């Protein structure tokens, strides 16, 4: 009996140890530290809910949370809209089909940090030079106001992630039986009706997956935020992930940053679990 279990634990040990040391222990320590005055080195003493009270009174954190929420709503909508449109487009029988897919997916292979730098050039230099050329002043200084900075990030994210979401929609669209569409056509359904009554219900699961991915990716965004706007001007485009990093490693307020990180975890978990719940409910209906 002992021998039969030995292989089991040997096979599991490396992955389980890594998970424990890298994720579970830091999370547990993190929750504990958030109730203390830990500064990264000193043995902590308990301060209770002090940090949590302070963080909800802090404008900077609330601003970051609000900005992140707004950004997530807009980018989830845009990414899914473009993703589905591109998928519908490249599942037509084009000769250029494969090359189009390849191109739309391309940005996803390059890291968010580098993409942010490329777009920083476009928004500051190219926009300004085009604006000057055609005499539109509104194109200048795109990363220097909160509103345009917001849209700059939304554009970057839509451009990057639409291709990823497209791939997910494609795999479901290709699973829609052709006979079903043909039968509907014979029954006199036009292309809009065919999409709404046949295709759309069948790609609903893709919608759930995409929604989950875009939601969590937008909410946890860091690299693109860092390299595109750096949170500026005056922290007005700073998202939560960046705010936590700054509190911890620039302002050196470790326990306070950790309290923010715990709140961040609770929000992300709540969003994800709601998503899973809705997903499960829908599966039962189907």
């Amino acid at each position: 009996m002992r021998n039969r279990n030995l292989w089991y634990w040997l096979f599991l040990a490396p992955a389980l140890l890594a998970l424990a040391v890298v994720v579970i222990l830091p999370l547990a320590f993190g929750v504990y530290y958030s109730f203390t005055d830990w500064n990264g080195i000193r043995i902590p003493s308990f301060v209770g809910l002090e940090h949590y009270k302070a963080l909800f009174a802090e404008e900077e954190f609330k601003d970051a949370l609000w900005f992140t929420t707004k950004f997530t709503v807009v980018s989830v909508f845009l990414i899914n809209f473009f993703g589905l449109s591109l998928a519908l487009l490249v599942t037509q029988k084009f000769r250029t089909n494969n090359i189009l897919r390849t191109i739309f997916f391309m940005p996803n292979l390059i890291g968010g940090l580098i993409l942010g730098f490329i777009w920083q050039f476009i928004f500051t230099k190219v926009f300004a030079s085009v604006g000057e050329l055609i005499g539109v002043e509104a194109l200048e200084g795109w990363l220097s106001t909160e509103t345009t900075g917001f849209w700059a990030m939304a554009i970057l994210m839509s451009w990057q992630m639409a291709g990823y979401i497209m791939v997910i929609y494609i795999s479901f669209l290709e699973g829609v039986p052709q006979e079903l569409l043909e039968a509907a056509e014979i029954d006199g359904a036009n292309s809009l009706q065919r999409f709404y009554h046949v295709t759309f219900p069948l790609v609903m699961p893709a919608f759930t997956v995409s929604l989950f991915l875009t939601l969590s990716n937008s909410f946890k965004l860091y690299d693109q935020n860092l390299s595109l706007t750096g949170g500026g001007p005056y922290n007005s485009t700073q998202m939560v992930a960046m705010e936590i990093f700054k509190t911890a490693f620039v302002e050196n307020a470790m326990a306070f940053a950790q309290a923010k990180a715990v709140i961040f975890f609770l929000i992300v978990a709540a969003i994800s679990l709601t998503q899973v719940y809705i997903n499960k409910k829908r599966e039962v209906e189907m």
Partner: protein
Amino acid sequence: MKKKKQSRIILEILGIILALIWLSPFYLMIVNSFKTKREMFEDTIKLPDVFSFENYTVAFERLDFIKTFFNSVLITVLAVAVIIVFSSMAAYALSRRGGKTSGIIFMLFVAAMLIPFQSVMIPLVSIFGKLEMLNRGGLVFMYLGFGASLSIFLYHGTLSGIPKSLDEAATIDGANRFQIFWHIIFPMLKPVSVTVAILNIIWIWNDYLLPSLVINKPGMETIPLKMFFFFGEYTKQWHLALAGLTIAIIPVIIIYFFLQKQIIKGVSEGSVK
């Protein structure tokens, strides 16, 4: 029928226009990377008068590109190898023995996917600092911890489709668990291993935050890390910065054009399951 053909052509043209728009950031980056500072000031859209590689030579040198590139390759290859070996083994154990313990451990791995990196970041750095593991080995170990969840999830799905009678037959022939796994099961998992490899390579190759916290030392930087410092140094010199960015993404684009089918398939399988 003719009308249908016409609308298809219009749609295809629309697709091509969109693709050109999608490519335009890369066009702008490459075109301007060949310009002088003055030329760029005049116009950012047009092609350069002469294609001079001067920006590239400077950027290549300042990025210490060959070294940086191999740092990235080393970390990515080691991390992905470790993830494939240990995740497939763990998934095999969980799916073959089953039972309550396995169910709980599997759920633990899946649940860990919900935890954002920022929530564990600060204690993680502190723990690894105390263990004196803020180095490449520590980084690879961290990638195993963060990458195992999705990988085990993917392996687990496939393993439940491989009949246990296969293992039993091999046991009767006198094979032990290690032999069964490495000689019979692991080769059968090749398609999932490709998916797992693709998903993890994309993520680890491009990761910035974790290396910036763990191996932030001269000579050890990966491409994203080096790019960040390089960029900070040349904020006002876009011609050099753009040449640097182009150098950094060229290897990725070359590989992508060779493996595009597998990459897109891997990503779609990884996210749909």
